[in-house]
């Protein structure tokens, strides 16, 4: 199944984000081996150079490590994984804030909304 990509943005950053999410959420576990470019390109249905670029970025961020013999593995650096996770969360929150601002909600109103929405979900009382 080809990955969902946004038409209006370059492809490689989107691939990178998707892989980052998969790494911090444990689809690929710390220290375990990471799929090959070829494999990932096929899954995403994008060309190998694009996938290569995304992987190079992950490597320079340190999230993925290339070993001369064993291929690529996911980093074991828990701190880096945690920071990455937080950064992704921040970016997500910033997106929602901006969207809600467009709808005319302030940050405080948004927090209230989130709390009440969360309350509904957990069926309190």
């Amino acid at each position: 199944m080809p990955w969902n990509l946004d038409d209006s943005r370059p492809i490689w950053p989107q691939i990178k984000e998707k892989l980052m999410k998969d790494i911090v959420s444990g689809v690929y576990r710390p220290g375990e081996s990471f799929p090959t470019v070829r494999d990932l390109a096929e899954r995403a249905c994008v060309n190998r150079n694009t996938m290569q670029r995304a992987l190079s970025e992950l490597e320079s961020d340190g999230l993925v490590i290339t070993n001369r013999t064993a291929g690529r593995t996911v980093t074991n650096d828990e701190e880096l994984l945690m920071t990455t996770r937080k950064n992704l969360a921040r970016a997500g929150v910033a997106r929602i804030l901006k969207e809600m601002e467009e709808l005319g909600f302030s940050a405080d109103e948004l927090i209230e909304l989130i709390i009440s929405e969360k309350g509904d979900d957990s069926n309190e009382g």
Partner: protein
Amino acid sequence: MKDNPILECVNLTKDYGAMTALDNVNLKIGRGKIVGILGPNGSGKSTLIKLANGLLKPTDGQILIDGQEPGIRSKEIVSYLPDKEYFGRWMKVRDVINLFTEFYSNFDRAKALRMCETLRISEDMPVKSMSKGTLEKLQLVLVMSRNAELYLLDEPIAGVDPAARDFILSTIINNYNEEGTIIISTHLISDIERILDEVVFIKDGRVVRHSTVDQIREQEGKSIDELFRTEFRMTAPGEEEARYDW
């Protein structure tokens, strides 16, 4: 990897009588890339592919494959998928595969057989009994089973269903040697743009844009497909007023 361009056009012009199909085209295509030649019907895409393949001769200027004019050597390193079927109707899959084995020294027979098997195309299947989609897949399997430096695919996904199209796209992604370049001519852009490195827009026989896909998306903030529709928009008489921009 060699670093000279695999394909180069120098002031390339092709006339058909009074009609100019390609008008002073200058273009360089590097190695290890998947490149889309995009343009509406009649823009000169097929003419360019046929010139690269040596089926047509330039009226003026040059087209070079690995630094040489198309000829015996380029036939060795170019694998061409025509936009029409070209097998004898009497042939079975076996005959077609034998033909390719005999004809091309760089044809990987084992690979072709393997791919046919995944597609459940049996060697006994007569070509004339095949659906359009199956036939397209078979042709692509044969073309991609050659160990070539340049693959020229003329409209590889025209008129096939979405499942066949997905197969064709993944075959393209997976089955070329890493140093090879694939040139795909098409007007069906949205289906294909995510597998492309570069695009060349052709309009009325001229190259109007040559850029990487990511550059275009970055600069224009839109997909190649959208950009194509904007740049090649044709307005029917009287339609001007009615259209509206989002």
